[in-house]
């Protein structure tokens, strides 16, 4: 019941957000807002595995780019598919990859797991770079339709709405998990895997659920990317900045709750967009670094943890 109320409230926030963006009536708001929302999804997805379960994933870019490249393939083979369907397929593929990665690497703990995820991202990038069908290292061009298919407005507005909906879904999901039996199991694994197992928690199964969910949501976040950028190459799709940002946002917002990544993503994502326009795009990465260092020193439990004290 509480979950239903939360979804309704989140939907209301989403509707207001879209209404305000329409009122401002500037395409750039949608372009910038899309990126912020994309990071809300990515940070929330990362936090299910990294924050709740305690496994730090450096391979965000791989899941994200696999979702994007799924769309490239679908766009070439089945262009009639609507975008949400492509997102579901992209999410399913990234979720499966997450499951497989989890099965292979979850016996590793701590930094060893993190290094394995980083390695997996490199392997995935190499495979895509050498796959001619999706453009290889030349990249792929996708022509963005001009109008939104479901309401009157630009296609970018449609992309914005789609990402807004995905944000509502992933944040609601993360919140539902946090207060559920699954969430308690995840926390137990994060704190002490041996003690969790001794308390009856099926640790391997739960970790696989976490990697699959996390990877799947990242894939869904990546699926609309080709339509957003209209030109996708491996270097930009697999860019390390996705992984770095996605880790920095929950750390800044706070990893223990569903709210932390949302706050972190909105704050850092907006700052980056503003800095990109007003100062320079290179500054946005510096911003991440400075904020990360500041928060690790001053508020190691993030913004949410700071207010809870």
């Amino acid at each position, binding site marked *: 019941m509480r979950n239903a109320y939360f979804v309704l409230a989140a939907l209301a926030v989403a509707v207001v957000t879209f209404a305000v963006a329409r009122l401002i009536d500037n395409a750039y708001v949608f372009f910038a807002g899309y990126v912020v929302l994309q990071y809300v999804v990515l940070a929330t997805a990362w936090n299910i595995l990294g924050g709740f379960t305690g496994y730090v994933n450096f391979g965000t870019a791989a899941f994200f780019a696999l979702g994007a490249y799924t769309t490239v393939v679908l766009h070439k083979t089945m262009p009639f598919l609507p975008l949400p369907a492509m997102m579901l397929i992209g999410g399913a593929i990234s979720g499966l990859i997450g499951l497989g990665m989890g099965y292979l690497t979850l016996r590793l703990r701590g930094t060893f797991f993190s290094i394995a995820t980083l390695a997996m991202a490199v392997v995935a990038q190499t495979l895509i770079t050498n796959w001619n069908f999706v453009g290889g290292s030349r990249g792929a061009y996708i022509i963005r339709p001009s109008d939104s298919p479901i309401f009157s407005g630009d296609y970018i507005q449609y992309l914005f709405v789609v990402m807004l909906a995905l944000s509502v879904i992933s944040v609601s999901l993360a919140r539902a998990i946090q207060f559920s*039996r699954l969430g*308690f*199991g995840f*926390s*137990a694994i*994060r*704190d*002490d895997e*041996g*003690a*969790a*197992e*001794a*308390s*009856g*928690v*099926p*640790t*391997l199964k739960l970790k696989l659920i976490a990697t699959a969910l996390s990877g799947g949501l990242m894939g869904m976040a990546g699926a609309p990317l080709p339509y957003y950028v209209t030109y996708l190459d491996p270097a930009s799709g697999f860019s390390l900045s996705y992984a770095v940002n996605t880790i920095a946002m929950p750390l800044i917002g706070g990893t*223990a709750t569903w709210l932390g990544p949302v706050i972190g993503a909105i704050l850092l994502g907006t700052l980056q967009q503003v800095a990109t326009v007003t100062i320079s795009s290179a500054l946005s990465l510096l911003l991440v670094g400075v904020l990360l260092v500041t928060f690790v020193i001053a508020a190691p439990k993030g913004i949410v943890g700071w207010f809870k004290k």
Partner: protein
Amino acid sequence: MSNTLLSVAGLGKRFGGFTALNDVDLDVAEGERLGLIGPNGSGKSTLVNCLCGTLRNDMGKVTFGGHALNGMAAHRRTRLGMARSFQLPRPFTTLTLAENIRVPILYAANVKTGGHAVDPRERCDALLDMVGLLPKADLKPADLTQIEMRKLELARAMASDPRLLIADEAMAGLSNQEVDEILALLLKLNGQGVTIIMIEHIMRAVLAFSQRLVVLVAGRKIADGLPQDVIRQPDVVAAYLGS
């Protein structure tokens, strides 16, 4: 003796060239209070880890309540009714005491009964009350004293509704009076029908608690019998005091 709850036959465990456990046989009856002693490094904790599924035994068989346990994952053994407390308390540090207890209630006790036979909140309060930690239910483990940590460890082990509780040095490092408190707690649990294996170095506690005493030395069981008889056995004395 009544029904056998736990049966260990020919158990062996090696770490590389080192034999930690060698051909250990052990039967524990339902409702029994068993003391397990042995010098440091004699294989007590390895035995516990093999019983609970944290380690895999290389040889031998473990049967618990009619189930063969070989190769079974630790969490499934807990669900069958085998609970342990850790030698060094290992609480879930980011969770409150109440949430610490809630994990095994959700994942072991309620799985066994097939759903919602018990209300997690009530059961959680009852367990914390049993060990006297109810007023601190909303605190984090970091705020606890050493003995409170031990009590939390026992309460969490009990939260899975075990038939067998393995208390691995639940009293190490506690004062005399605190030892008595834990001892009383374990006796109370045993009175409720829980079979208990106590692993302990504090002889006063072991002798007061155990109905039967088993001695491990260098991975072998060298004695098994009434406590008064066992501690007079020459090889037991030799293991502890030297010959």
